[in-house]
């Protein structure tokens, strides 16, 4: 313990002499360090315990509880009954669950690449010093702060088959009226489009920030070496944006796999189950048909799938780095 203290004060002393802001007597500093460490544990626990209790209490406890629940038949009210792996077996054979997985995959597979690539393209367009550029950036980003509920209400209105502005516009161009959310072949794609409208701005902002940190020396060097615009983009700009891209792909994928609010407000999973995504399936099983154990099993299946994808990505990333 004392050695640790000495090493630490030695370290800070060195730092202090380098920084040169404060020149304090080393003995006074050692005394202060000693005082600091005495009873430090108790103060530290007082500082962290509210966060620890709330965060762990509302994550670790539920994670374990969910696992237990997935082996039970439960309606959230009456005492639950142990059923072993029955929930998982039913799940594996449930066509509705399979559909929900498929629709979530389609939604994610469209939303993630389109928002990330679109975000990069728009960020490259917006990364220039011209008049009104601040306004353009604001307008592209502003849908991001609109809640999914508000987006849903707004687009249900715009896309109302009878009274909506969208069909009115189509009518003016002489195009046939569309069913939009009432058409099973369109609803899921409309949800992707709305999410792109609101979610691409986030990618734009993160990429714009990333573009600021591309080293001008590298760009200059590439130019001198005779690289054109596309050459600089391909060999300098894009590689230096790779960490940003990886973050965005993960962030957008996590959001896409958990899409719920927008679905709840616009289609409630319909028509004909065509927009029932996984989280909607889980919510419906737990809080509408009151089969909470079954719902917990579905949530666990999804979480394990996410975990596997996450681990695979980590492994892949490490291999690429080598």
């Amino acid at each position, binding site marked *: 313990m004392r050695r640790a203290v000495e090493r630490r004060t030695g370290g800070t002393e060195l730092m202090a002499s380098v920084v040169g802001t404060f020149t304090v007597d080393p003995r006074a500093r050692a005394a202060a360090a000693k005082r600091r460490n005495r009873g430090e544990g108790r103060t530290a626990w007082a500082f962290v315990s509210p966060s620890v209790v709330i965060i762990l209490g509302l994550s670790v406890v539920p994670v374990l509880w969910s696992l237990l629940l997935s082996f039970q038949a439960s309606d959230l009210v009456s005492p639950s009954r142990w059923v072993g792996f029955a929930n998982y077996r039913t799940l594996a054979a449930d066509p509705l669950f399979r559909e929900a997985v498929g629709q979530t995959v389609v939604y994610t597979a469209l939303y993630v690449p389109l928002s990330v690539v679109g975000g990069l393209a728009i960020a490259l367009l917006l990364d220039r010093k011209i008049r009104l550029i601040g306004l353009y950036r604001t307008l592209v980003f502003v849908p991001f702060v609109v809640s999914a509920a508000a987006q849903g209400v707004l687009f249900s209105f715009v896309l109302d088959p009878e009274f*909506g502005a969208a069909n009115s516009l189509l009518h003016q161009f002489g195009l046939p009226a569309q069913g939009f959310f009432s058409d099973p072949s369109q609803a899921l794609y409309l949800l992707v489009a709305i999410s792109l409208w609101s979610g691409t701005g986030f990618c734009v902002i993160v990429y714009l920030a990333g573009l600021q940190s591309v080293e001008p020396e590298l760009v200059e060097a590439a130019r001198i070496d005779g690289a054109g615009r596309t050459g600089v983009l391909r060999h300098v700009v894009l590689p230096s944006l790779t960490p940003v891209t990886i973050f965005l792909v993960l962030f957008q994928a996590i959001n896409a796999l958990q899409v719920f609010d927008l679905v709840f407000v616009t289609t409630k999973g319909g028509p004909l189950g065509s927009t029932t995504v996984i989280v909607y399936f889980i919510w419906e099983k737990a809080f509408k048909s009151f089969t909470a154990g079954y719902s917990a099993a579905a949530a666990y299946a999804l979480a394990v799938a996410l975990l596997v994808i996450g681990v695979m990505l980590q492994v892949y990333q490490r291999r690429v780095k080598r």
Partner: protein
Amino acid sequence: MKRLPFSPWHFVLAPLALLFALPLLWLLVSSVMSNSEINRFPPALWPSRIDLDGYRFVLGNALFPRWFLNSLLVSTVAVTANLVLGSLGGYAFARMRFAGSKPLLGLMLATMVIPFQLTMIPTFLVMKHLGLIDTLGALIVPSLVTPFSVFLFRQFFVSLPRELEEAAWIDGCGRLRILVSIVLPLARPALSTVAVLTFLSTWNDLTWPLIAINHDTNYTLQLGLTTFQGQHHTQWAAVMAGNVITVLPVLLGFLLAQKAFIRSLASSGLKG
């Protein structure tokens, strides 16, 4: 400001920006249309005159102002609590030595990757056991502090030079005093980031209120809005007026604090 020359890029950028702005513009426009104009076929694309009946209807509704206050209360408490508890926890993890601090921090970080749908049913059960279901408490307790807030504060405090606190230690200042009077005044970027992100996520949340609240006097704006839509199907102007009021606080906050807002989101992305 230096005047910049006109650029042909405007021909690309202006339509693009307009595409993103159009739905929100349409939201504003339709909220001041009269119901007869909205329900006409084909619907009018521009109001002939500004009609505030939608707003009058919404604000005169007994529940709507209440939902607004509920949302405001939940978000305010969440922001305040995240700033206080997050900075306390973050400071302890950054600067103080206590048994088990490293594994504890690791565990807290690990909870960030737990998907919400895995915890939503048992969180409902935990809240039920605490007797909080169908009260605003059920909305407040889970949002009091997030691992992200603690982690963000920790990262910021670690990057501050220790020397700033050294003199105060020697003068015998306690940890709390050092945190409040020396560290936090320097931590404005961290404070604003946590405040912005907490407000955005609590104000805009729908899933958890939907699960935790039954009685309509305890609804938040987002939840109220979704039921509003069904109840007043013919009253689209009112629904759109309610929607504008729901979106407005976030939008105004964003426009007022645009720089801090964008910086905090962008940096949360870059450090993630």
